Each structure stands twice: as structure tokens, then as C-alpha cells.
């Protein structure tokens, strides 16, 4: 399907300077929609979260969701933006069946937030400052499903279904200024930027920030210009790149595709392009020009949002720590290796580990619990780890008992299982299940004697230096003690016996 000729990446970068621009749509997680009281909920039955306003029925009028405005301002502030004294809504007029009013209520020349910047650090440690032109509020459209036809696209479909549950869901669109000078790092920077936005809105809890659900969506603009040239090249806008990997791949693909055309003396068509994740290429969409006429005009049904200083400052003071700065701080405080730390971050367990450490566990112990046993349990029961019914404080309490020698690792896992099963606090589970390390040395020695009697050659092997032979005896003793013995102590006793 992909018939584009591509120039090699290296050759492309030798001849051209890459300029990228990114538009990120963040779907807010407010309880209700932007302009009506309908639930803002993912996964409901089609057309159940709808009302006259979001269906665009005659006579209905919008009313602004204050919480959505607050979230939008918070995003702007987190990106270092200024907040406009007057944020005006505007109508963007175009006909499309997923757009209930056939105009989108958005913002045009008076966005709520503007002129920000964010520093993006790549894995290599190199960092880039990305300028934010604006962050504005708008409403999402409904969702079309095209039925029949081969491609699932509107062309060739027999009919299309429209679900307006998403119509009117609040969005914040964050637009960067053109980013220059990233060179061969442009694709990586694009992905890192979107990841940074995702992490920020997630840390602020203003969005569910799930890219796979479209909570964070990115359109990537790419243009090339001959090295040394002043004038910007013609750009393409690649839509629907909805994973970090796709963003990187799509930008790289566009660089190579455009470089080939330009190197052959051709010209780039200004257009939107679609990224095909499965086959890794972009295809031409609608031609786009600056003359695309949306007939913007101020929304007469809404009064402008005019946030006062006190409101802005109260939002600013409630902003959480920047996620990148926080990661840096925690990694150094915990002393994790790069790999260990990335494991925690990628599993989205920073909060849990931090809270467990705060409750008294060592960083390594906290990490092991969450990325190990607890991740396994969550995975086995097919739920999110954050949905497990155990608190970081409980995990830390269990770890303390291990450290004090009151629980073996195996017993501790049983305590965790008990807590997860709703049997109460760790102490209650221990009590109820009778989990207590056997500290009676006499009982241990008796059990060891019994085991050695069945495996008489073990002591000899140990004396010959095959210390691992002790394992079989330890296993037998632990079984006899129903697991409630300290395996390390059992091992010590066996070794003492062999060497005495």
C-alpha cells in the first residue's frame, strides 16, 4: 500500500533542516461535559449521555462548565503560559455529521492561555525548550462508525452510525510554535513532548491521559527546508497518531518522504495525512490550505470567561510538582538503577512506591513489592494495579514485619493475599491465619534431623563444598513447618551441623 519513495534518514538530515509543530488535544476528565450537564464518561451505551444541548437541538443553549475552565487554566499554568484576562469562545463553522450543531464551540483569537514553554529532556540527557503558542478550550465531536465497505472509512461505507456521547466533552488543545534545531532528534523530541504533556495532565488529574482511549491525541506538523534557507517549507499535518511510538515513527516517515520529493525537485502538497500504525506509513487525506474557511466568529451564546487574579493564583498554588522534576528527584533519592527506575515509571507505580517509602519501607523493598508480587496479582486478576485493595501503608507494615524477622517472604505474600481478600489489616490477617515464624530452635532441629535421616548423603555433599545440596533439606523442613520458619535460619543450622 505504501508507495512513497523515501530518502534515507541520514541523507534527509544531511540536506534538510526539520521543523516540527505539535497540536495535542487533551480530553478533560470533568464529571460533566463542557456546555451541558451530561456525564463525561467513556464506554457508555451509544447516545445515552446526551441532552438537547450536546445534541444541538433547536432552542438549546450552552452553559460553561466552570471546572473545565479551571482545568484548562491549570494546564496553561503548568506549561508556563499566561492566562488571558478575557477568554472568549468562538464558533468554528463546518458541516460534519459528528458535529451536532455543525459548528464547534472553540476559542479563536482570545485563547484562555498563551505564551508558555516547556523543557523536554531526551533519554540521552539532551534537552530542548518547546515554545507553547496557546492552550485553548473546545468541545469534542461525536464518534462516527462507518459500516460496510472495506476500509472502515467514510468513503465506500454503506452507512454510518453516530454516537454523540463524546459530543461536547471538554478538550484543551495545546499548540506549539514551530520547533527548530532538533535535527535527527526531531522524531524523538516529538514523542517526548507528547509524553511530557501526558504526564503533566495525568499528574494534575485533569485528564485520564490514556492515549489508547484518545484522551491525549496528537497531530504532528512536519516541514523541511534546505539547510541555510530562510523560508519555511510547506508542511503536512499527520493526524491520529495516538501512541508515543507512532508519533516518533510518523514524524520520521514524513521527514524521509518529504526529503525524497524535495531532493527530486518536487514540491510538498499542504495536506492532512493519516498515519497507518500497522504498516508504518502516512497517506494523503484532505488537501488543506490556509484558506480553509471556518468562518470563526465570537460565540454570541456565551459570555467571555474573565478569570480574576485570585482565581488564577489559587489554581497556580494547587499545581502539583512537574512530573519530570519529580522523577529526577525520586530517582536520585531512591538510588535506583536506570532500569529499575524505568520499570517503576513505565508501570505507572511512582505514586505507590513513593507512598510506601514514606510509610517506612526501604525504596528497594517498596519497588519489589509493587513491580513484583502486586503487579503479578493485578495481572493475574486482570485489573489495574491501582485498583488493588491494599494501601502503600499496609505494604510498608508487612515489609516491617519481614525486616524484623516476624514473617518470611512466603508468609508475607500470604498476608498480602489476605489483605487483598478483604480480611482486614495485616495484623488481623496474621492473627486469623496463624502466621507466625517458628522461632523454637528445638522444633527446627528436630525437623532437620528428620529430614537428614531421609537424605543421609547431604551432609557429606556440603562438606565437599556442594553447599546447594542444603536446598533439598531446607525445602523439606519448610514443608514440615508449614512454611512458618525462617529459611535463612534453617540453612544456617544445616551448615552448622555439616561443619561441626
Amino acid at each position, binding site marked *: 500500500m505504501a508507495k512513497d519513495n523515501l530518502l534515507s534518514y541520514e541523507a534527509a538530515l544531511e540536506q534538510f533542516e526539520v521543523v516540527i509543530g505539535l497540536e495535542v488535544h487533551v480530553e478533560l476528565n470533568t464529571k460533566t461535559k463542557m456546555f451541558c450537564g451530561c456525564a463525561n464518561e467513556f464506554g457508555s451505551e451509544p447516545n445515552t449521555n446526551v441532552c438537547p444541548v450536546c445534541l444541538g437541538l*433547536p*432552542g438549546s443553549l450552552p452553559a460553561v462548565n466552570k471546572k473545565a475552565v479551571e482545568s484548562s487554566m491549570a494546564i496553561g499554568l503548568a506549561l508556563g503560559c499566561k492566562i488571558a484576562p478575557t477568554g472568549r469562545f468562538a464558533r468554528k*463553522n463546518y458541516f460534519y*455529521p459528528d458535529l*451536532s450543531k455543525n*459548528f464547534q464551540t472553540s476559542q479563536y483569537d482570545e485563547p484562555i492561555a498563551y505564551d508558555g514553554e516547556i523543557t523536554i529532556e531526551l533519554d540521552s540527557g539532551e534537552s530542548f525548550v518547546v515554545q507553547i503558542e496557546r492552550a485553548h478550550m473546545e468541545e469534542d465531536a461525536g464518534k462516527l462508525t462507518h459500516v460496510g465497505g472495506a476500509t472502515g472509512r467514510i468513503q465506500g461505507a454503506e452507512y454510518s452510525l453516530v454516537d454523540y456521547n463524546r459530543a461536547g466533552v471538554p478538550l484543551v488543545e495545546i499548540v506549539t510554535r514551530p520547533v527548530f534545531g532538533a535535527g535527527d532528534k526531531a522524531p524523538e523530541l516529538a514523542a517526548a513532548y507528547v509524553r511530557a504533556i501526558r504526564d503533566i495532565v495525568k499528574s494534575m488529574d485533569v485528564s485520564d491521559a490514556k492515549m489508547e482511549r484518545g484522551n491525549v491525541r496528537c497531530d504532528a506538523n512536519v516541514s523541511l527546508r534546505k539547510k541555510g534557507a530562510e523560508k519555511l517549507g510547506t508542511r503536512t499535518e499527520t493526524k491520529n497518531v495516538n501512541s508515543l511510538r507512532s508519533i516518533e515513527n510518523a514524524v520520521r516517515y514524513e521527514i524521509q518522504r518529504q526529503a525524497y520529493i524535495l531532493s527530486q525537485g518536487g514540491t510538498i502538497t499542504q495536506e492532512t495525512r493519516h498515519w497507518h500504525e500497522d504498516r508504518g506509513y502516512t497517506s494523503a487525506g484532505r488537501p488543506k490550505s490556509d484558506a480553509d474557511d471556518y*468562518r470563526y*466568529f465570537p460565540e*454570541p451564546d456565551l*459570555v467571555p470567561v474573565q478569570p480574576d487574579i485570585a482565581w488564577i493564583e489559587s489554581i497556580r498554588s494547587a499545581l502539583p510538582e512537574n512530573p519530570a522534576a519529580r522523577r529526577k528527584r525520586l530517582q536520585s533519592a531512591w538510588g535506583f538503577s536506570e532500569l529499575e527506575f524505568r520499570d517503576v515509571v513505565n508501570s505507572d507505580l511512582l505514586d505507590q512506591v513513593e507512598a510506601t517509602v514514606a510509610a517506612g519501607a526501604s525504596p528497594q523493598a517498596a519497588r519489589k513489592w509493587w513491580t513484583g508480587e502486586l503487579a503479578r496479582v493485578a495481572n493475574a486478576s486482570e485489573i489495574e494495579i491501582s485498583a488493588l485493595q491494599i494501601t502503600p501503608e499496609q505494604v510498608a507494615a508487612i515489609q516491617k514485619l519481614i525486616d524484623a524477622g516476624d514473617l518470611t517472604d512466603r508468609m508475607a505474600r500470604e498476608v498480602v493475599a489476605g489483605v487483598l481478600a478483604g480480611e482486614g489489616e495485616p495484623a488481623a490477617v496474621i492473627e486469623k491465619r496463624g502466621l507466625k515464624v517458628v522461632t523454637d530452635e528445638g522444633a527446627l532441629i528436630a525437623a532437620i534431623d528428620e529430614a537428614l535421616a531421609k537424605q543421609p548423603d547431604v551432609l557429606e555433599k556440603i562438606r565437599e563444598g556442594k553447599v546447594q545440596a542444603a536446598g533439598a533439606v531446607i525445602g523439606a523442613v519448610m514443608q514440615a513447618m508449614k512454611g512458618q520458619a525462617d529459611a535463612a535460619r534453617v540453612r544456617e543450622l544445616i551448615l552448622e551441623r555439616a561443619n561441626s
Partner: protein
Amino acid sequence: MSELVYRPASELVALIAKKEVSSVEVTKAFFDRSEKLNPVTNSYLHLNRELALAAANSADEALSRGEVSSPLHGVPIAVKDNLTTTDAPTTSGSKILEGWVPQYDATVVTKLRQGAMPILGKTNLDEFAMGSSTEYSAFGPSKNPWDLDRIPGGSGGGSSSAVSGFLAPVAIGSDTGGSIRFPAAVTGSVGAKPTYGAVSRYGLIALASSLDQIGPVANNVLDTALLQDVISGHDPMDSTSLPNSLGSMAQAVRQADPKGLRVGVVKQLSSDGFQPGVKELFDDTIAKLVAEGVEVVEVDCPSFEYAVAAYYLILPAEASSNLAKFDSVRFGLRVTPEGNPTIERVMAATREAGFGPEVKRRIILGTYALSSGYYDAYYGSAQKVRTLIQQDLNRAFEKVDVLLTPTAPTTAFKIGEKVNDPLAMYLNDIATIPANLAGIPGMSVPNGLAREDGLPSGVQILAPQMQDALMYRVGAIIEKLYLAQWGSPLLTKAPKLEAK
């Protein structure tokens, strides 16, 4: 009891309250008359006998429990058919909505129901309120009870002909550029456009959101005031609705004292272009006020000259966007062309068949006015004129309490006379448009019959924003002066409809 229909609403409500007559009897009287005469006047598009009688019955029951729900408790009312009602079709005078029954009541309709006012039916209007004569209604023109060959004004000609023909004691209208006041003037009735935001627009099928305002229509100033008191007040569903109450209009009417009043006559609206008889009646009104000791001065509003031009850019621009939702996807008419049409073709065919010529004319005009490259010259300039008109008015209201103008340049014209001359039709609104552009209140009160044709004329009172009470006070003063001259209301001089 047939004489009941000639009683003012203020008397009917008193009779009902004293149980000398029931709301059911009053409502029946209006239905008996309407069922006989509506085929003559075409005031109503839909009559609601059973439901209205049920509502009247509830009103009577409430009274017998001692409950009084509003200052017009038990008085039936006609509602312009561009307000949504759950129990009657709502067409806005258009084929594109024929048969559509909304799932929600307009806020004003809710207030009428809560105020125990039985809704007699839905009244005719120019399609989507675009027009000055009801000739652009998809369901035929309404007739002026004074002369059935003449228009009852527009767009609210159904309401004005119902009230002036005694087919309803009071009615609801909507006024975007004069659609309440012009019909009132040419039918010898009273109509008021409140301050923008005084009455909720939720459920009013929008023509031009920044200009539209719902208001009362009645046979006298007190009834008009009582109705405004029933329908006004803040509504969280309409973001442009005023936060505070403007007080009681009925109380202002009862204080009809001319002492200390200063009146301005607008230079730009007192010379050219007025029918001589209309001009003479206006001069007579001014002379009467002067005789009462009222101070009258001429005020200069130079920007009024551009009001009609600005209005016919702003209105079509907003209307072109407001009417985009009529696309066949979610409600209303759907026309499916032959073959296997795309959604674009279905939308286009529906709009082609569903909209009338004036609506199409204004959609095209508005689309053009908002187009990129033309926006500043048209929509932008028109908004500037709007600001200038507000400034003219602010200056004028520093010198005087209210402004007076003839409501319309002429008396009622003949059906068919102007229908093919849009520009001539647009000029009917020359005196009423400034109030909508500036958001100030305006009302029309009858001031006699023009000597050329014996048809009614009206004087318009314009007051500063939110000073609706002052406007009503002046309306009551003028009405009182004329009652003293005529001995009975002007409408009693109208030819009896029964005779025709």
C-alpha cells in the same frame, strides 16, 4: 360570556381570582372564538384545546386551594411558534421542522405553565422569524384584523393578530429587530422587547443570538407589564441571562406620573421616510406630553444611519451559523435524493427543500459576511457600528430619561406589496433595530389611526439598559393620555371580525 374575550387580562385575572368566572370558562371563550376565526386570520399554526382546558382546570383547582401562581394565574396565552413546547409541534414557521415535537419546554414556556397560564396554541411567524409581515411563513401569512388584506406585521404577526383580533388575551413574541414592536404598532396593540438578558432565551429557536429577546404582547400596557413579570428572571440555562431581577413592571405601570420626565426625540428618526399620517400622530404624542409638562429635547444619534446596514450583516452572520444544525441528521425533515447519496447530498437536499427563499437569502448573506477576507469589512465593521450606536445612546441618555420614535415608518401594508422587495421590507425596522443592537428595552404603544388609511400607528419608547420599569412607566403615561382622548382603547375601534 362571549364578552369575556374583550376584557383585559388584568380584569380576567381578577374575575378568576374572585371565582366570578373560571379559567376554564375564559379559556373556552377564547377557543370558541379562535376555532371560528382562525381560518380567517391564520394567527395560530396549532391550537391546543384539550391540553389548554386541562391546564385551565388545574389553574382553577389551585385557586380553590388558595394557590396563586403568578400575576396572570388562569389567563390563557398564545405562544409564538419559535419557542419549544413538549406538547405541541414547534415549527418556527418552517417546513424543515414541520411535525417536530421537542422533548423540552422553553424556559419561558415552563414559567407560563408554572404561572398557571393555559397555552391556547402556537402562533404564526415568518420562517425562523426572518421577516416583517409573516408572508415568509411556510404556512401562509396571518391577517391584520383591521384589514384582512393587510399584514399584521412580522415576524410575530401571528401573536399580534391573535391579540388584536381577541383570539388571545396576551401572547409571547420574540424580537430580533422589531418582531414584537412592529406587529404591535400596525395592529393597534402593545408589545415590548425587554432588555437583552431580562428573559431567558433557552428554548427560543435562535435567529441571531446576540439580538434575540423574548417579550410580551398584549392589548394594553398593564397586561404587557404583567406578562413581562411572569416570564422574566435569571436562568442558569442561558449564559447571557441577567443575574438580577429588574423589578416589577406592573408596579411601574401603576405609577404613571409624568412629573419630572425628560424625553428625547431622535433627530435621525423624526424626519424623512415616514408616512405623513404616522409622522403627524407622532408629533401629536409629543405635543400631548409637552402639554403635561414633560421636557422634550431633540437628541442626535448619528450612527443610527448605519443601523440597518449593520443589522443586516450581524443578523445573517449569526443566523447562518445558528441554522447550520438543520441538517436532517438528528431531527426534522429529511430529503434523500435518488441514487446512493452521500450525507453531504442528503444535507444539501434537505436544506434546499426545507428552507424558504428569505432564509436562504440570509444564510448566503451571512456565510459571505463571515468569510475570511471579508470578515473585517462586513462582520467586523458591523460590530463597530454596534458600539457606536451604544455610544450614541449612552450620550442621549445622559440628557433624557427615554427616547421616543414612531415605531414604524408606515401603517400596515398590503399583503404582497413588499414581498418581492427585500430592501423595502428591511426598512420597516429602521426605528426598532437600534434597540436590539444596543440591548436596550423598547416598546410600542398605540397612538392613533393615520389619516390616510385609518390604520393604527404606534409610538416607540426606548429606555436605557435594565430600565424596563421606566419604559413601562412612560408607556402607561402615553396610554393614559390617549384613553382620556379616545374614551376607550384603540382596539375597540377596529372593525368586528365576526362581520367578515
